[in-house]
């Protein structure tokens, strides 16, 4: 069993055991869990998940003995969590570079698919770099925001947390859109039809291969995103072969299938989350 499989097993045990907590203890523990998991991106996953499961098992014991999570773990869970996270082993530089490389790789594929879908037969390097940098900033910002707000009373109001999620999502979409239009002409690389077909075919094959090669914890993201990648990549290939009269049909079909693939993306995530709750 690899270390990644062991981490998955710990997470899965945690998800199962959490169901046995009473509502008050579940609320207390879930906040602690999120606070610890979002403390940083570069802590040893096994150590983090092992400690979280250990605490959960002990809180369950306390619950069975008639005590509650707050009595057992204390009224200052963040103090204890800060002490624990400060001592967690950090991941190696190699693992961090792999993480950044992976993120850059995924955003590069996405940027490539978007640029190949455009009318102009050329690629521009700037969105590749900016998308990668923005994606990394976005992930760090999301972790930081959740970590800072999980115990904030104001975010317990559904309206406040809903509004914040909307503002963050809108800002994200806005920045991503601006990046796609940031294309200084001197960094344009012209591409031929053959190259369009080769690149898109490789994207489809690569995304299929990634389903089997990717770490188990990232597989749901890949399964959710696959149809979106296929729809745009296939549409890019068809556009090269199809006569000009069919352009409108391809455009409409791509739009419909894109909407369906976005519905699949969010639907699959929701289904997957429910399965693990």
């Amino acid at each position: 069993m690899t270390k990644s499989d062991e981490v998955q097993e710990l997470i899965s045990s945690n998800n199962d055991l959490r169901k046995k907590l009473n509502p008050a203890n579940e609320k207390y523990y879930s906040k602690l869990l999120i606070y610890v998991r979002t403390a940083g991106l570069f802590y040893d996953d096994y150590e983090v998940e092992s400690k979280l499961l250990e605490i959960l098992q002990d809180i369950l014991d306390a619950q069975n003995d008639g005590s509650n999570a707050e009595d057992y773990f204390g009224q200052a869970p963040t103090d204890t969590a800060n002490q624990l996270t400060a001592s967690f082993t950090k991941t190696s530089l190699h693992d961090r570079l792999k993480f950044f490389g992976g993120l850059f790789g995924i955003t590069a594929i996405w940027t490539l698919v978007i640029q190949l879908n455009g009318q102009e037969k050329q690629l521009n390097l700037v969105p590749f770099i900016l998308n990668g940098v923005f994606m990394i900033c976005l992930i760090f910002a999301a972790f930081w925001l959740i970590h800072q707000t999980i115990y904030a009373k104001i975010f317990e109001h559904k309206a406040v947390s809903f509004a914040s999620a909307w503002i963050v999502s809108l800002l994200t979409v806005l920045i991503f859109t601006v990046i796609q239009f940031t294309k200084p002409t001197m960094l344009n690389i012209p591409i031929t039809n053959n190259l369009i077909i080769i690149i898109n075919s490789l994207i489809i094959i690569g995304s299929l291969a990634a389903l089997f090669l990717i770490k188990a914890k990232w597989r749901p993201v890949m399964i959710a995103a696959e149809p979106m990648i296929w729809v745009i990549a296939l549409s890019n290939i068809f556009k090269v072969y199809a006569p000009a009269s069919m352009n409108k049909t391809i455009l409409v079909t791509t739009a419909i299938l894109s909407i369906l693939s976005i519905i699949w993306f969010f639907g699959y995530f929701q289904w997957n989350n429910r399965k693990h709750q």
Partner: protein
Amino acid sequence: MNNSQLLKGILEGCVLFVISDGEVYGYELVQKLNKLGFTDLIGGTVYPLLQKLEKRGDLSSQRKPSLEGPSRKYYSLTDQGKKRMNEFANQWQSLELVVNQIISRKGGQND
């Protein structure tokens, strides 16, 4: 006994002593310490301490199958931990002697 900075230092040695009786998991350790007189002690104080002792090499841990669900993390004392436990006992006994002498002297003056 109430929680204080002094208590935290002493607690470390006491944890080593309790674990020297046999391997324990977190909740079990808190229960044992509560019964031994650390009545206000909570899990939130014990986990960082266990983590510190394990990182320092005084304790080792192992996940063992549990009847009630997934495997459980049990802590046991290492050779280094035994050595540190004995050092703590010696230090405590000489400190206790000195502190008792000082207190009884002060007590004598008050009387």
